[in-house]
């Protein structure tokens, strides 16, 4: 199993969730208005405009599902920016 994590701008969350849904991933967690620092400088979570706030999304899927959507995710991230981190994961029985 793979854990797929995203850090993307708030305005693109709906688009990303739509893409995940298209690929059969319907379970996910969203944490809104996160703050941090990255390649685009400091991102705050205290603006009145959503344009400068980031969201954190994570989901867990089978490796085959990830391979199926990998290229689309690359295109998405190239167009809209953001980060995607993939790691091995498993559920505790």
């Amino acid at each position, binding site marked *: 199993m793979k854990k797929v994590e995203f850090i993307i701008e708030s*305005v*693109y969350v709906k688009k990303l969730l739509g893409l995940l849904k298209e690929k059969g991933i319907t379970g996910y967690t969203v944490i809104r208005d996160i703050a941090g620092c990255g390649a685009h*400088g400091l991102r705050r979570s*205290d603006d*009145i*405009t959503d*344009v400068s706030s980031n969201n954190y999304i994570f989901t867990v899927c089978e490796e085959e599902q990830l391979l199926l959507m990998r290229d689309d995710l690359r295109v998405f991230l190239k*167009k809209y920016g953001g980060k995607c981190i993939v790691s091995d994961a498993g559920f505790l029985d």
Partner: protein
Amino acid sequence: MEIDLIVQNILNPPILFFFLGMLAVFLKSDLSIPQPLPKLFSLYLLIAIGLHGGYELSKSGLDANVLKTLSLAVLMAIIVPVYSFFVLRMRVGLHDAVALAATYGSVSAVTFIAGITYLRTIGVEYGGYMVASMTLMESPAIIIGLVLLALFGKKDEKSSRTSWGEVLKEAFFNSSVFLLVGALLIGVATGEKGWTSMEPFFGALFKGILTFFLLDMGIVAAKRIYELKKLGFFLIGFAIVMPVVNALLGMGLGYYFEISQGDAFLLALLSGSASYIAVPAAMRLSVSEANPGVYLPLSLAVTFPFNIAIGIPLYFYLTNLLWG
């Protein structure tokens, strides 16, 4: 310019709290207003001006003068982004020029609110339908920006654009436009009785909530000032000169078509204001190549403070000269 006008504007608690918010950032104070309170305040302000504008509109009705003023507002919302785009293209890339043209073609509700608060303070009348003018001026710039991009963008780009449906939805049903139109219609439908019942909350507390909101805006604007270093003189100059040019044009049209002084002042202020909520969100969706690090700091950290500190008394002074 009469110094009194500037003093009257600045010595207004909400405006002073805006500068207090800026000062807090410069002095590295830990002052902050917890989210999502500022968002609640902005909803309150939109409902309050929508309801009050609707109530005023229910009294005045839709006559030829109102329609003339609304038409001038729409005209300004269409022409400002077009000529701004061509000015910007002299020094700025296509995508940033589109986003900036749309940002400056649209309006700032809080600047408008500061303007009507100023008029109330000095006792100058304005039409309640100016709230409708502001609502009408929010969205056209987004559409014009996308039309400009379609006309001047590369062919392969046009096909990969976000769908028009999505952008139109963002332009006309974004939360501020939706709430303003809704509150305005409710204000018209319920008239004096409705406004009287809501006045204790949406009227009496208005200045207090505006003060909280402007305090937060001061903090937000000051944090963005540091981003201006990268932008250069042309863009910072644009963010001050273009609003004045737009305001003068709006005022000139108002004078030519003989609208009242209060309405012309608000039309000028709206024409000279720049959006920092609705348009940036629409531009991130539709012109993702444009850098928000350019249009947001210019709108929030230059044009907004300029308008509420200097623009308001300056435009009022000029309308005083014209209307005598």
